[in-house]
């Protein structure tokens, strides 16, 4: 097997004048979870569609397990599973029938189909609903069935296109647990999401895409540290008090290395620190010793949201309706929802 389970190099996709992808590079090692993070219309779904052989790229290279998706799409289809944001299950069929249908269509040996369906129903907690038409399922159950359908033929590579979009928080947590189990089994996962929390929790590496290009790549930790450390923000009744507090903190070195980068902004003193809670204790002790009482105290952890905002200049969670209109209608994507 090649070094990477999924690889894209200079991947380009144009729909007429709409440039959905403008040369993206991705490389996912086997058995890892890789997150594609970006706002609506960034090109995430287009990238997934190309890698899953649904779309033909305009240019560049797309490989799954070392095989060019355009040269041997059949091989790729044998080895991938796709679960999408629209929960592509047949509503009129029961959960069991849906899974058996996929089993037949992936050409599993006939005797194995029923057993595999039962196994997945059990694994995804759908046994009790196995013989009910899937239109009676809740949103979360439908997503689980959709995910189960993607796993019927035990693909070593799994593509999850916004697997939890539109789910309530409990169902989302639930699905995250399921995905984590899969990864523990050694499946390679490419996950697209607009939820920073989701990328943070599941992905070992991330690519942030915006307007069809990768604007940052690395582990969630690396991306966050680009923004610097935790900041403790202490407020005072007057800028005069803030100034005196700043002097006191500089003298004492209370917050460790951070005191060097201490900044005073009006009534506020901001200190970048390594360990927020610990720093807060020593800061308060110093201030108390000097008889200074702060009015507010805040600890700001950098989040992927901050990363996202600083990278793209806009918020991550853009208008979802725009995405649905663009992707659902004709399988085309509008660029730049910014």
């Amino acid at each position, binding site marked *: 097997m090649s070094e990477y389970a999924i690889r894209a190099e200079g991947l380009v996709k144009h729909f007429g004048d709409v440039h959905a992808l403008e040369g993206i590079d991705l490389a996912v090692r086997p058995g890892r979870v890789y997150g594609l993070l970006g706002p609506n219309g960034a090109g995430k779904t287009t990238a997934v569609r190309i890698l899953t052989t649904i779309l033909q790229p305009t240019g560049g290279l797309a490989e799954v397990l070392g095989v060019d998706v355009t040269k*041997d799409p059949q091989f790729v*289809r044998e080895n991938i599973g796709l679960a999408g944001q629209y929960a592509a299950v047949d509503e009129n069929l029961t959960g069991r029938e849906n899974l058996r249908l996929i089993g037949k269509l992936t*050409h599993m040996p006939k005797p194995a189909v029923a057993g595999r369906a039962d196994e997945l129903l*059990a694994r995804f907690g759908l046994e009790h609903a196995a013989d009910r038409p899937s239109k009676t399922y809740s949103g979360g159950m439908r997503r689980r069935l959709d995910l189960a359908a993607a796993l019927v033929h*035990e693909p070593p590579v799994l593509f999850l296109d916004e697997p939890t979009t539109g789910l309530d928080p409990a169902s989302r947590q639930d699905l995250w647990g399921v995905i984590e189990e899969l990864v523990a*089994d050694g*499946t*390679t996962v490419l996950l697209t999401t607009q939820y920073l929390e989701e990328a943070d929790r599941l992905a070992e590496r991330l690519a942030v895409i915006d307007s069809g290009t990768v604007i940052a790549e690395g582990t969630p930790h690396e991306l966050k540290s680009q923004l610097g450390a935790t900041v403790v923000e202490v407020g005072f009744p007057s800028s005069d008090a803030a100034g005196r507090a700043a002097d006191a903190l500089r003298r004492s070195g209370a917050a460790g290395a951070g005191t060097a980068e201490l900044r005073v902004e009006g009534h506020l003193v901001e200190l970048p620190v390594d360990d927020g809670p610990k720093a807060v204790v020593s800061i308060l002790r110093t201030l108390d010793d000097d008889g200074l009482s702060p009015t507010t105290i805040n600890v700001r952890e950098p989040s992927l949201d901050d990363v996202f905002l600083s990278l793209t200049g806009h918020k991550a969670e853009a208008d979802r309706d725009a995405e649905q209109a663009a992707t659902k209608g004709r399988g085309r994507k509008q660029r730049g929802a910014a």
Partner: protein
Amino acid sequence: MTTVTTTVDGPATRTAAHGNTLSWLVSDSIAVTGRYLKAYQRVPQLLVFSTIQPIMFVLLFRYVFGSAIPISDDVSYVDYLMPGIFVQTVLFGSTSTGVGLAEDAGKGLLERFQSLPMSRAAVLIGRTLADLVRNIFVVILMTAVGFAVGFRFHNGIGNFVLCLTLIVVFGFAFSWVAAVIGLGAPNSEAAQAAIFPFIFPLTFASSAFVPTYGMPDALRWFAEHQPVSIVVDAARTFVLGTVPPTKDGHQVLLEGSAGGKLLVGLLWTAMIIAVAAPLAVRAYRRKTG
């Protein structure tokens, strides 16, 4: 929730089996057909609704308009009408191919199929075959309805079976036309709206309900040469046998033998499939890719 035991290396890579294309086409098509038939079985309303409209047409033409449509002394209007109703039934029924595919596209099902190692054509073949099966079922129901309102076939059951066979095969051809339109539509409502204006004039500007001799010249020419009339006329010839002209000397049926008409009807059917099927495959590719 239990975890399945797997090896530490994770799921194994599968090598592509490129051989079995034909057997896959067959087995995948059967699987997809089964999927749609199950839906009809599960939602019998779909079947019931597809008979309500034709039944209303039977009642409307048999009892309301039919009283003012003289055919000839030898042929009762209901016997004249029913082959037309059968053809109308399968044509209207074929629209569900397009609507259903548009629905599947909207739900992302076509995309899932596209990502599976299944035969590409099986989705379209499976859907059109399922609608063929459904049309057979509905036409049999409509035969019963016809009998209830006085329809009889005068030319033997063998010929009647031939008549219904031609009609359902013709409906199958129109399923492919509906597939082209449905896959080109942005959603199922639009598909429904786009297919109907296509089917409607073909059904009504034909000899399905009334003889063509009273129509204005241009309309009459169209009505006598378009495939719906040709199939209706062939079906009617199977049911009625030979029919003498009316008192005014008008021919009730077009000239020609039942065998010849069957051949022309099948030729039209084959031509429609030959044009629509590749277009449908292209529309399917475009829809998902």
